[in-house]
């Protein structure tokens, strides 16, 4: 090394190596950012889904009983119910104990509507409507205390008589680490110590959420209707997008001559569609499915709104149009993934099948598709996950924000992400927390779908291999 002194060279080299190591750390740190974002995301959701609330009661517990309610016995609690909310008792019994809706329940003999429950023998053959108004509450109370625990009755009292609403709510970590400030704030809000509500821990994520419909009171609101909506949407997507998508993929991979102009157009077109923003699909669904194929009152064909099938009041803003919109949306993803899976099937399988005298379709159906199945399933997981979380197109085709009845095919509907969206944008205390709880439900659903599909895929794969 005549010109560069050995020492200089080496120190330069070490310099260069050090710089390399530093940059390497920096690159790796990018994943730190990604992990951090995910962790923060999860923490934010947990932080909101659990927390502390100050409840104010429409009727203060002290005003209906001298002793704390929790200490009262079952009969005493029932007596309270009968005294303070006699009119609501049949509904409570019907909701808590009978599978029937209130209308049917009122007209059916108790022995029948509450078949497997404790019913006083002398009333078993009477319907609630037959019992004289004066006695009805008492009989209902008797049935409640016969079938429910003290805690359950306490809950009923809380909902029917005390009627709590959230006055203020605080996220979990604030409640855990900054309790003092919250207490101060409470004192500020409720200077009168007698009426000051106590700070309670509240898990907004409740198991009853799954079975309770939406409610304007965040304390009792559930996601049942939204969850059902989402499930129905998924079913429609599975039934429409998957067969069509896989069929299109088979056509493109097995039958289409890539030199034909129309096949090239189809191919390019699918790739372009995959890049179209989801909200545009919403507009497509709104115009094509909701407007033109929807309500005849606004010039539609009455197909998607149900008039063609005898439904009278369909508007076209329903599960079907929303589901089909989502199906159109995921179709390109399904096709592209299925194409890749089909392309990956070794040509030797095809040769073997043809060599045995199989027709083209027999070869595809019996050899190509089974071999491509794991890959196709992977694409399906992707697109199902996408369909579950997709919100914008549903908003555009007109998902409702507040649905109490279980949705039917032609009724108004809502879906989980829509609920999360509306709850997130509501200013009243309790709704953002509810949104967080809804998010947890949504994420659990997503994880469930992915797990099921993952297992299915691995099974299919194992069947193919040894």
């Amino acid at each position, binding site marked *: 090394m005549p010109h560069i002194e050995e020492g200089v060279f080496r120190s330069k080299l070490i310099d*260069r*190596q050090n*710089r*390399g190591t530093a*940059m*390497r750390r*920096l*690159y*790796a*740190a*990018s*994943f730190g*950012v*990604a*992990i951090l*974002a*995910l962790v923060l*995301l999860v923490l*934010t959701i947990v932080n*909101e889904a659990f927390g502390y609330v100050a409840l104010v009661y429409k009727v203060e517990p002290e005003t209906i009983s001298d002793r704390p309610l929790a200490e009262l016995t079952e009969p005493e609690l029932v007596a309270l119910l009968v005294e303070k909310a006699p009119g609501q008792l049949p509904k409570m019994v019907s909701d808590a104990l009978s599978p029937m809706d209130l209308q049917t329940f009122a007209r059916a003999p108790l022995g029948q509507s509450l078949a497997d429950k404790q019913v006083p023998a002398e009333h078993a053959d009477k319907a609630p409507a037959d019992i004289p108004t004066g006695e009805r509450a008492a009989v209902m109370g008797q049935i409640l205390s016969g079938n429910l625990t003290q805690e359950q009755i306490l809950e009923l009292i809380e909902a029917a008589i005390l009627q709590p609403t959230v006055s203020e709510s605080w996220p979990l970590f604030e409640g855990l680490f900054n309790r003092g400030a919250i207490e101060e704030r409470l004192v500020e809000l409720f200077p009168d110590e007698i009426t000051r509500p106590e700070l309670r821990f509240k898990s907004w994520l409740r198991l009853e959420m799954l079975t309770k419909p939406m409610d304007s009171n965040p304390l009792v609101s559930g996601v049942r209707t939204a969850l059902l909506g989402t499930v129905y949407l998924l079913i429609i997507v599975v039934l429409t997008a998957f067969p069509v*998508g896989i*069929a*299109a993929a088979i*056509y*493109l991979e097995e*039958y289409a001559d890539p030199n034909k102009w129309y096949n090239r*157009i189809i191919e390019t*077109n*699918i790739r*372009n*569609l995959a*890049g179209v*923003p989801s*909200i*545009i699909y919403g*507009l*497509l669904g*709104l115009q*094509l499915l909701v*407007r033109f194929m929807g309500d005849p009152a606004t*010039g539609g064909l009455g197909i998607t709104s149900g008039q063609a099938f005898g439904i009278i009041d369909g508007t076209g803003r329903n599960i079907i149009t929303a589901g089909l919109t989502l199906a159109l949306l995921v*179709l390109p993803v399904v096709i592209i993934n299925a194409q890749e899976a089909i392309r990956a099937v070794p040509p030797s399988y095809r040769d073997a099948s043809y060599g045995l005298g199989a*027709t083209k*379709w027999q070869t595809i159906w019996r050899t190509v598709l089974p071999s491509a199945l794991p890959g196709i399933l992977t694409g399906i997981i992707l697109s199902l996950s996408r369909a*579950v*979380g997709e*919100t*914008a197109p549903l*908003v555009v085709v007109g998902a409702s*924000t507040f649905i109490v009845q279980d949705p039917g095919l032609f009724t108004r509907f809502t879906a989980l*992400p829509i609920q*999360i*969206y509306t709850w*997130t*944008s509501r200013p009243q205390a309790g709704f*953002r927390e509810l949104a*967080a709880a809804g*998010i947890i439900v*949504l*994420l659990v659903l997503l994880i469930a779908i992915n797990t099921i599909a993952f297992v299915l895929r691995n099974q299919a794969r194992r069947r193919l291999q040894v």
Partner: protein
Amino acid sequence: MEQTMEGTSYSTERSRLLSQALGKHAARAGIGKRPRPNERLIVVLLFAAGVLSIFTTAFIVLFLGTEAVSFFQSRAWIYAKMLVVDQAAAPVSLRGDAEGALNSTGTSLLLDLGDLSRVPFMPGALIQIGDEIMRVAERRERSVIVERGYLDTQPQPHPPGAPILTLKEDSVRTVEAIKEEDTRIVLPENAAGVFAVGDIIHLETETMRIAAIEGDTLVVERGLENTLRRAYPANAVVQVERRPTLLAYLTGTRWQPQTGDFGVLPLVQSTFMTSFIAILTALPVGLAAAIYLSEYATQRVRAFLNPLLEILVGVPTVVYGFFALQFVTIGVLRPLFGVDIYNTLSAGLVVGIMIVPTIASMSLDAMGSVPRGLREASYGLGATKLETIARVVLPAALSGIVAAVILGISRAVGETMIVAIAAGAGPNWTFPPNFTVGAETMTGHIARISGGDLSYQSVDYTSIFSIGLTLFIITFLLTQISTYITRRFRELYE
């Protein structure tokens, strides 16, 4: 040979079994063409499934196009407004002492303190001193800052104690009753300046066209568009027609189609603001991730990191939106920088996180297709890994990375829920762009407006389709450019 005998019996047995199971005819029919109607039908069905996607595109283009056209044919009727002196406002005047005098360039009005407390002088309000109209820019403790010479009036000096008139907008109303056969509409003083010859106006439901303006009188053609000629009492409100023009649509900075403001720029601006922030976030993170995965990570590490990116892809956007609002805005940006509750910064940051996987995986592809030979040449010359990446791999993969960025922008532009939740609920044009305040993007606007039950004939309905078309064109061009670059890049190395 015994073996052969056995073979014979196997074969005969199979032949027997086959012809038994299938009937003689099926087992050994000739090799002639067989009709296979099922196969034909299947091909037709498969082809139909393939063609369906063409219809999807066709319908998207058709609907966005036709509704956008009807948007540009739509009209909004707005009340013709004129400025009048607000008689109800409390009388105020410039301060009486010498300091109260205002020369023709000063912008600070000194008022008596009593006056200041009585009159709000909200920013944007118009006031008149003498013949000059001024616009209130800011209200200070002892004075009011104004912009001089508003609405084509000339800045003039004003003496101390000059009375200040508060102006307000008022609808233009007719002065005299109009009979069925009249063609002249008399307006209050100065009101005719609001109109121009050729304007289409409405009195109640009757459409008229201004044929000429004579002083304060409009000469009109009446009963146009088959509307009924009627008589009107004095004080009838005059409405004037506004139509969107392409120019107004593309250059206007206010979006309020119901009241005749058809400028899409505020929506486009905030869309690009959030996308800009998003790319600023996602590019370094995504590119670094791609470099790490492609050049450093071992197989094991990769098996751990790839799913991480997949999870980022799998999180529903509405959840990201929640995160943007609850954590990024309320948890971080607001305490630190005092931003508005809705702002484009937070939405952009989270959209950025969302598109990191897009950028990472496309960049990874790009770097993966840089030929080994190039790298080896660089190592062979004694370059370190970093130097090889920076001087050889990245430049070689540059166009692929550019394609990734463009596709990322396209994703960001089309993203809806994050911006709908976190960016704001009203169009807002800010210049220079202000990232700390709320502003609705194109997608956010469509989502909000379409949320209600829209009447299919309303301007709102057609307007979201025209915005949709704009959005479609933007994202389509971006994806096309990205695909084009990617293809060129591939051809280079394959």
